[in-house]
């Protein structure tokens, strides 16, 4: 259940260009959050909260980790909040990833700031005994983060648009180099998700979507995505942000 919680910034660290990692302390959220869920952060002086994925959880330490890019005024202000600041947060929000069962081989495909939720997911899948392969795409070398962390989960490929690190190109350029997978999970820009779902049409897949939000709880109909199966829309904040790749029209 979503609650309005006070969350303390325990540590703050720049991990790549314009990219911040924050470890947040909160017992309630860290004790129940599952991979793929997000928190909705109030930033002083801003009308709308900012949705940020939960990138990791340490239940023993009562902490959750978020990774975010400084883009506009809200994330910039958040990035400037000193350690010790108490944030007003709604969470955990949304439905997380439905986790595969069995001894599957799993492909994680992340683009830019879509990478964070895949880390907590990968860690959780490893615990369930699955094999993880990950492909992470970034603009250029200076934006690359969490390479080591993903390497610890299994085989890891880095792709940059300009080739300044790893392979040059898009994540989909290397997807075909992976032999066999049972299921993929992907999060990133919409163009990437479109390309990914098209290049893996027959594989079971889950994608995590982003959209501008109002309420973040399912009441305002701001964050919808057209549904493939039924007519109408699904709400990203409540029915998502994770959907079966079959379920929504991108």
């Amino acid at each position, binding site marked *: 259940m979503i609650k*309005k919680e006070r969350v303390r910034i325990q540590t703050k660290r720049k991990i790549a260009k314009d990219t911040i990692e924050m470890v947040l302390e909160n017992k309630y959220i860290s004790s129940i959050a599952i991979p793929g869920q997000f928190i909705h952060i109030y930033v002083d002086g801003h*009308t709308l909260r900012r949705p940020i994925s939960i990138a990791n959880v340490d239940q023993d330490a009562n902490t959750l980790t978020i990774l975010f890019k400084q883009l506009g005024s809200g994330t910039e202000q958040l990035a400037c909040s000193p350690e010790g600041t108490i944030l007003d947060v709604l969470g955990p929000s949304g439905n997380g990833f439905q986790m595969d069962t069995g001894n599957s081989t799993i492909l994680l495909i992340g683009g830019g700031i879509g990478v964070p939720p895949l880390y907590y997911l990968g860690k959780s899948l490893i615990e369930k005994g699955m094999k993880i392969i990950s492909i992470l795409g970034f603009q250029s070398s200076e934006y690359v983060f969490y390479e080591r962390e993903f390497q610890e989960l299994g085989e890891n490929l880095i792709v940059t648009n300009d080739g300044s690190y790893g392979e040059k190109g898009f994540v989909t350029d290397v997807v075909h180099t992976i032999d066999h997978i049972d299921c993929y999970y992907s999060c990133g820009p919409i163009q990437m998700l479109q390309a990914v779902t098209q290049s893996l049409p027959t594989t079971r897949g889950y994608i995590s979507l982003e*959209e501008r939000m109002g309420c973040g709880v399912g009441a305002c109909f701001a964050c*919808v995505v057209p549904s493939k199966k039924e007519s109408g829309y699904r709400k990203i904040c409540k029915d998502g942000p994770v959907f079966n790749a079959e379920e929504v029209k991108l």
Partner: protein
Amino acid sequence: MDLSVEMPGLHLKNPIMPASGCFGFGREYSQFYDLSLLGAVIMKAATREERYGNPTPRVAETHAGMLNAIGLQNPGVENVITNEVPFLAKYNTSIIANIAGSTLEEYEFVARAFNDSPNVDALELNISCPNVKEGGIQFGTDPAMAARVTEVVKRASNLPVYVKLSPNISDIVSMAKAVESAGADGLSMINTLTGMQIHLPTGKPLLANSTGGLSGQAIKPIAIRMIYEVKQKVNIPIIGMGGISTAEDVLEFLLAGASAVAVGTANFQNPFICAELIEALPSTLNKYGFNSLQDTIGKGIAI
């Protein structure tokens, strides 16, 4: 302190209600607090058929406000009556149905449909949604059209009708008087102001719909001015809204002439806002020297 308010069809235990479109049909916010605390709930707009609304992005943030272009997404009036009203009816609160349409016939249909819904206490007639292209906007800015739709809905409905006015207009008083003459039982004001944001990285309007409705604290001075002007010229009660986020704001609306208030955008910042306002209101009224809610209504009007 007694916070109750009597208005046509509405015996409110307090003057605080969530505004239409900002609270869905109550389900989501019921996980945060007991909806029986609320004076009333105004439901999301209902139309004849299910509507899917506009493409995304549908919201943008502005200074002290936001733009929305949801486009009246809703499951259709039958579905609202069958699936949503019964949920809200479990709570000890009044229910106001916000009705919208693109044609006079659609308004009439939707209004009539709620006659069969015993738990709905009043209609809020949304003639002012700026995000409906087919006709909504004309109803809201032309007093003759507004009077027309008010008459049609009054005739079709057995419920009191609160007409929700658009602020995108030069002369709000003429509009208010027109709908009062047409039989409106009350007014609801204000809806959003039409605005736009251009997204610099793409160089194009951010909202897929190009324009959207501006709400939130930014518009409060406009809402206060319009209510103040209208209160002096009409004899029907006003539900005030536009940027309310503190108990002081509620008092400001009451002084300007509102008998009750609705809270929209502020729910997104703080899901507990309505409950918190209800709790804070008595001490805020006391602080400014008022011993009852009734004493405040329209008292700001300088004569």
